[in-house]
Every structure is written in C-alpha cells, then in structure tokens.
C-alpha cells in the first residue's frame, strides 16, 4: 500500500459543500488539510437538491433554530458567494384550499427568527411573479433566493487548494488507521487506479460525508444514527418563474419552485429509504406524479412546460425513531466530538444541517478541530472573506458573446482566467448552456475534471435542453487530448449518456422521447457506441 508522506493536521472525508467548507475554513486558518472524496465533488446530496437560498422562512414555524441559522447564512452567502447566488426574492403563497389564518402565524414566526416577511396583496404577487397561481388568496414576501451548489462547493475547494490543501477525488475511505483510543489516519482505495490502496495520517479526521457519514462512522467503530430521507425533484426546460415560489403552509411535498440559472426546479418529496439504496436513487412514476400535481398548484404553466429530467438526493438527517417521513426532524447542525461521546480521539462528525448552513457547519467543525489541536487562537474568517470568484472588483466589463456572458455568471471574477483571446477558445462546446472551449480547458486544468460527468458539474455542459446531444463528442475530443486514451473516452461517453438518460427515463414521454431518440441515433447508431468496443469486428 502507498502511503502519503506528508502528515496532515486534518483529513476531511466528503467532498460535498460541508466537506469543502471545512477544508476551506481549516486551510484559511493555516492548517495542513487533506480533502478526500469517494467519487466527485458535489456527487451526493449537495448536487441533488433545489439550490434554494433559504431565507429560513420555511422552518420559522416548526424549527426556530434552523430558521435563525438560515437567515444569518443567507445574508452571509450574499456577501461571500455573490457569483453563486441569485437574489430573486421569494413568495409564500396561500391558495384557496389553504388556511389563510396560517399566514399570521407564519409572519410572526419569521419575524421572531429575524426574517423579513411582509404580507403583500395577491395582485402585487401576480405582478412580481406572473407565473404564480392566479388563484392565490395571500402572499408573503421573504428574502429567498437561489444558490448554485456546484459553484459554491467548487469555490470552497478552489480556495482550500489555494491555501495549501491537498484534495483527492475518486478515493474511497475503506478503513481507519487507529490506536486503541485514537483515529490516526485513513486507508483509501484509489478508484481510478484499480482500487490501489493508499493511506494518509492526520491528527484529526472530520467525517463530513453526508448520508454516507453513517457508514464512515461505522468504519471508525462509532455509531451516528442517520435517517436517509430521499427527496425527488424535477427540472424544467427553462425559467418559468424568476421569484422563488413556496406554499404558505406546514412543509409538505413539492411545495417549492426555485429558478436557477436557465432552468427551474420543483421539489421535493420526502421518504425514508434503506441505506442499501442510497447509492442508486431513482425517481418513481408516483413521485413524478406528486411533483407535477403539487407543482402546478404553485405555477399552473408547469403543466405545459417541458420536463428535462428527474433526480433524487438523500438528506443526511440525524435520526429520531418516531418520524417516518423525516419532515419534522430538525435541519439543525449536529457536530459530534467522538472523544467525549464515544471515547474515540481524533475523530469528529459534522452532519445534519443543510446546504444553506454549510459554512456555519464548517465553522463549528473547524473550531472543534482547532480545539483538539490546541490552536484555539485561529479565528474563522469565512463569514467575511469572499469566495474566489465573488471578490468585489468594482469593474464592470462589457462581455461579448453568449459563452463569455454565461461563463461570467458561472465563475464570477475567476472567469477572467478562462482563455477567450482566440476564436477557437470562444467556440461553444455546449450550445444550450454556452460553455466554450476555453471554459472546458479551464475546468480540466483548474477544477479537478477528468471525465464528462465532472465536467458537467463544473460548467453546466450537458445540463441544457438537449442533455448533451451536441456537446458530448466535442468535449470528449478535448478530454481525450488531455489523457490520451480513446477507449477510456468511449466508455466515458457511454456513462455520460446513460447518466443523462437515467434522469430522462422517469419523464420519458413527449419531447423527452423525441430528444432521446435523436440522442440514441447519434450515439448508439451513427457513432456505433452500442457496439461493445472498438476492436475491429470480423464479419
């Protein structure tokens, strides 16, 4: 087994928003950090949610503590992550079948939690957001918005690396290096290198693996009882709404419609699922049905809007045994010191919480790490220091072309690092989402991209209307230039297409089937990728 020679202050397990946030916070405080992710950054629940910049209003009535955390972090993210955030505002609407009396309870609770909530005239709500169900009888304006979890996480990873952190993706933690009372490091499998073993040591290991944290804890010999709550969502082909629309009632299925970048997302459902299934979530027809039915209550035009795909994530809730759906479990942060809890030194679990509070979770976990390292003098700066890409430069550049404008939206000030001088740099790889050759090369070089799926998460390539039909071959060519293996690239194309198809299958009717047939003609048929390999067949 290989061993990483360097000894770290802290190893962070999990490349979601929380793990990336911990890695950034630790490295900004000057610690030596190793961040490990089993697959790719944002591959878990981080990349499988609404992308809602919660105002906290949703939790105001039922979970004051979460609501307070949310609004505080909401305001913080607007400052530090401006290129990941869209300040759309949000509405909580009351429909005729809802209890309008709840509105007052809701507004009072919001205000108590520090959330600006203002009841507005339904007519004004219709003007603010023309797609809203015109039958609404009440509306409350709150400071919701949308946040792009892919960008947010990568900006954290990027900054962590900038401050000296090492990162490993496609490395799965299989075991821990331990003495009788202490975790001293991790044993990993390099999934990209035939599962080769590799180990690393650190004073403290942070378990930030989301729902998979349950299994990580088990490997460390402690128990963190998690509650895997599956949430399904649908993505529509364009922005139906420009303001977040919520239902003013107790949280239920499919009652949030969030505009994000070029699309909008309705969700979610909430169902407890067995741990064995968390790696292969699929959206069922029943879930699609519920999402559509409820979604149309928020915005009737969803009924005639193209559904691009369906997807599902698993929330890492911390379990309570008497709630089958998980709706009433606190979204509050759980930060466990396994030394005081289980007598195991050098191991921390950070879980619960939500995307909105990832920074605060990271701050708590890092505070605990520093305490364990005896370096309590190191202060957290993540609430003030903008993420890379979100620095306020005051410069307003005039951008030419769809690719440049789209890239500026995705990478903020870092878009300046994207090559755009030559015509060939500005050429579009992904025409739906405006991803240029320059941006693809930038992602390959700077954002830990080595395949099409990771490229999609960093750039939105293949997330648009055609789900990759035009861009796959172009990006495949650019990736192959980098790694030089045609066979690997052909497999990568098949994986990417089937991953896209996985999300199209639950909504495979109408335009989605026309699109799928074209995709199949192009790649299974013309490109002959349905032939199992490219060795020369004999006829």
């Amino acid at each position: 087994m290989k061993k990483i020679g360097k000894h770290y202050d802290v190893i962070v397990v999990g490349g979601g928003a929380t793990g990336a946030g911990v890695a950034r916070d630790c490295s900004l405080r000057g610690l030596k950090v190793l961040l490990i992710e089993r697959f790719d950054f944002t591959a878990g629940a981080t990349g499988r949610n609404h992308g809602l910049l919660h105002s906290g209003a949703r939790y105001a009535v039922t979970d004051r503590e979460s609501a307070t955390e949310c609004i505080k972090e909401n305001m913080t993210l607007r400052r530090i992550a401006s290129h990941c955030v869209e300040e759309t505002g949000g509405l909580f609407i009351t429909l005729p079948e809802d209890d309008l009396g709840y509105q007052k309870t809701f507004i009072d609770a919001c205000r108590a939690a520090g959330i600006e909530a203002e009841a507005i005239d339904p007519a004004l709500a219709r003007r603010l957001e023309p797609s809203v169900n015109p039958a609404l009888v009440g509306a409350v304006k709150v400071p919701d918005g949308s946040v792009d979890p892919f960008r947010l996480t990568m900006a954290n990873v990027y900054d962590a690396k900038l401050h000296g952190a090492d990162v490993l993706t496609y490395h799965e933690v299989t075991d821990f290096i331990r003495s009788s009372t202490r975790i001293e490091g991790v044993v990993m499998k390099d999934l990209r290198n035939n599962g080769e073993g590799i180990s690393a040591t650190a004073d403290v290991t942070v378990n930030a693996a989301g729902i998979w944290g349950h299994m990580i804890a088990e490997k460390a010999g402690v128990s963190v009882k998690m509650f895997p709550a599956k949430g399904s969502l649908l993505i529509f082909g364009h922005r139906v709404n420009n303001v977040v629309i919520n239902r003013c009632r107790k949280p239920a299925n499919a009652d949030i419609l969030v505009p994000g970048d070029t699309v909008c997302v309705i969700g979610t459902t909430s169902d407890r699922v067995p741990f064995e299934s968390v790696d292969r979530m699929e959206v069922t027809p029943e879930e699609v049905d519920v999402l559509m039915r409820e979604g149309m209550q928020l915005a009737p035009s969803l009924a005639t809007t193209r559904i691009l795909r369906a997807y599902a994530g698993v929330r890492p809730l911390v379990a309570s045994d008497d709630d089958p759906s998980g709706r009433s479990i606190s979204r509050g942060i759980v930060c466990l010191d396994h030394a005081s809890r289980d007598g195991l030194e050098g191991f921390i679990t950070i879980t619960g919480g939500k995307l909105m509070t990832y920074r605060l979770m990271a701050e708590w976990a890092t505070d605990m790490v520093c305490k364990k390292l005896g370096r309590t003098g190191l202060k957290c700066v993540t609430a003030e220091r903008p993420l890379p890409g979100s620095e306020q430069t005051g410069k307003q550049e005039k951008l030419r072309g769809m690719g440049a404008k789209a890239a500026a939206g995705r990478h903020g000030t870092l878009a300046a690092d994207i090559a755009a001088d030559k015509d060939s740099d500005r050429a579009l790889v992904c025409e739906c989402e405006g991803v240029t050759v320059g941006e693809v090369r930038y992602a390959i070089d700077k954002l830990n991209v080595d395949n099409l799926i990771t490229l999609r998460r960093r750039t939105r390539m293949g997330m648009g209307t055609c789900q990759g039909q035009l861009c796959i071959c172009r990006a495949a060519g650019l990736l192959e230039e980098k790694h030089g293996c045609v066979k690997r690239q052909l497999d990568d194309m098949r994986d990417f297409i089937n991953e896209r198809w996985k999300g199209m299958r639950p909504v495979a009717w109408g335009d989605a089937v026309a699109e799928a047939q074209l995709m199949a003609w192009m790649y299974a048929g013309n490109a002959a990728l349905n032939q199992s390999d490219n060795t020369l067949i004999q006829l």
Partner: protein
Amino acid sequence: MKFDIVIIGGGLAGLTAGISLEEKGLSTAIVSTGHSSLHFNTGSFGLLGYDADRKPVASPADAISRLANNHPYVRTGMASLAPQAAQLLADAGITMAGSEAHNHLRISPTGIAAPAWLTLEGMATVENLRQQGVKRAAIVGIDGYLDFLPRFIASTLEKAGIAATVKSVTTDALRLMRKNESEMRAANISRILIGDRLDRLAEAINAAVKPGEADVILFPAVVGSENPDEYARLRRMSATPLYYCATPGASVPGMIIGRQLTSRYTRLGGMIFKGDSVVAGQFDGDRLTEVKTQNLGSDSLRADNFIFAAGSFFSHALEALPDRIVEPALGLDIDSPADRPELFGKDLFEPQPFMKAGIATDPALHAMRGGRPVANLYVAGAALAGADSLSEASGSGVAMTSALFISNAIAHK
C-alpha cells in the same frame, strides 16, 4: 389538390416511394414536416447489421430467417427488394458501394467500425482502405472544428494495421467562419466550402500532406451539401487519394443523398409540400379519402392511395404519452412491444423496446385502424412496428424496402 398517391413524410421511405411511383407514371405528392432524419445519416445505409443476440451480421440476406414474425423484412421479403433499392439510388445519381449479400464495415464518427449495407462512394470504409492496401493514413481535421475526432479514428486504423498521423488545416474562409461561436458544424462548413474557397482548402490539404507522405488522406465529410459536385471535386484536387470520414450531428453525406433523391423526385414531377404537416384524415369505411394539412387549411389532399412514411418519435409521427403511444394525426393503431415503464430500458445502448413500437399493419403493410386494415393506406419506414433500427442497424433498409414493397403493390392494383 388531387393526386394518385399522397405520401406523408419526405424522408428516405417517402422519397423512395415517391420516386418509384413517379417512375411508374403515377402522380404523387409528399407532405414533409421539416427536414427528415436523412440529415443525420452518415453516408452509410444499414440493412441488417446485427442479429437478435447483437452479433454482427455478415450477410443480411441470410439472416432474415431469424427475425420475429412482425418484422417488416419478414413481411416484405427484403432480399429481392434490396437490389431494387440500390438501383433506385443509382438512378438518382447516388453512387453507393455494397450489397445485401455481404455487409462491409463503415467507420463511425467515433472511429468504431460497424457493419453497413451501402456506403456513399468516397466515404472511408475498412474495405476500401484494405483494398487500396493502405499502410499509412493521414487524418486531416480542420482548425477549430470540434465535432471531428481524428484521434479516435486513428485508434481504429492502428488496430487495422494502418499507421495514422493526425494533422489539421485551415483557410481564410474557415478562419472567418470560426469567428462565430456556434456555427462551425459539418452542414454549415459545407456551405462555405464552395467554388474557389474549396480550391484554397485543397491547396491547404496538399500542403499539409505532401505527395508520398501518406497512402490516403481521411478528411471530415464537410463538403457538398449545397452542390454534390463539390464533394467529388475536392477528392480530385487532392494530390493524395482522399476519403471522407463521417461526422457527428447533422451530416453532409446524408444531406447529399437527401438532396439527390429530392431532386430526382421533383424532376420526375413529384410535388413536395415542405414544412407542412398532416393534421387529420377523412375516412370513408375502410378507405382514407383525404388528409388535411396545417398550411392548406380548407383545401385538402385527396388521393386513391396514401402512404404513411412520417417516421417515428423524433419527427412526431408517433407520440409517447405517459401511459401509451399514439399516432396523433390519423388515429392509427399502435403495435408496442411493452407497456410503460418497460418500454424504456436503463441502458440506452442496449435494445430499447420503444424503438420497436410503431403503427400496426397487416401483412400487406396496410395500416390498422380500430383493429381493421385501411385498404388504401400503407405504412413505410420508421413508422412501422417490429424493427429496432438501432440495435439491428436496419433503419435505411427498412425504409427503402418497405417503400418499394408498397410502391410495387400499388402499381399492381
């Protein structure tokens, strides 16, 4: 307007039927909703490339006996029609090599060698490289043209024992074109590469690959969609023998084939209603008497016989609803191998049941409606149930042979 036969759909099946019927002296019209899937054809036609076990087929003619009963080939007896199809193409000025007796290997846009029935002359196939005794190939791309994957093709050639070098060329016209962020696609490039701009390209290619440096040049098929003569002219101007390689997306060889067939059809007197769609039909007993279209409004198209050759899902001839598949214009019966969700398998590269769904027909390819055959309405091409054009590599073959089968039947009436 009144015709002997109205054909719904202007793709390979519709044009084949139209040409064949016009050749027989009948008056026909084609209604075509936008351009057809011929635009995505890479210059090779499949008759039967793989059997039910996904094994490559050496001889399509011999493999028919192993097909399911509702397969169009079982009904039409493909073997005798395939040579007729090849003749029809030749008469339209489309020179293609291959035969139903023995498949050859085309080279796909990702470089994969796959079985094919006919391939447009000038396109690279494993056979023509072997016959030429090619040892060294130069694969020449275009600067900034991202769809073409020369290194993928090189990897296949190397497996065939051919040493491949990869080069790239450009010209002023191509450089100017790349100023556009999005439009450098095969079909768009071919509109630029005409006249003396093509001469400049030939010079660039000849400068990049010196005579004697390679036995053959492989160049992306990005020439000739406007004027098929240009496709041959570049080959003549190249100092080293030049073959074209298939490209992804909208494809020039397919457009050339489409253009030649369309022009053959209109020269024979056929009329095309472009960009128009059949929206309804008038039935009288077991006969279809007329169809209504979007553009013609109160006027209708009347005919003694109709052929439904409108394709499948991509062209919206078939619509998948959440629980079933329908043919929306005429309300024809559907023959579907499974119900949802079994219609859509998890792996898009495995045979997909939805690809076999289509309009139900009787053995004479009359469309079924309400469980009974419509006496003067036939179904041709991808709209037919029972064939999976992708997993069998049979799309073009089914289109042409079913169209000819129907055309022969109508002529015999």
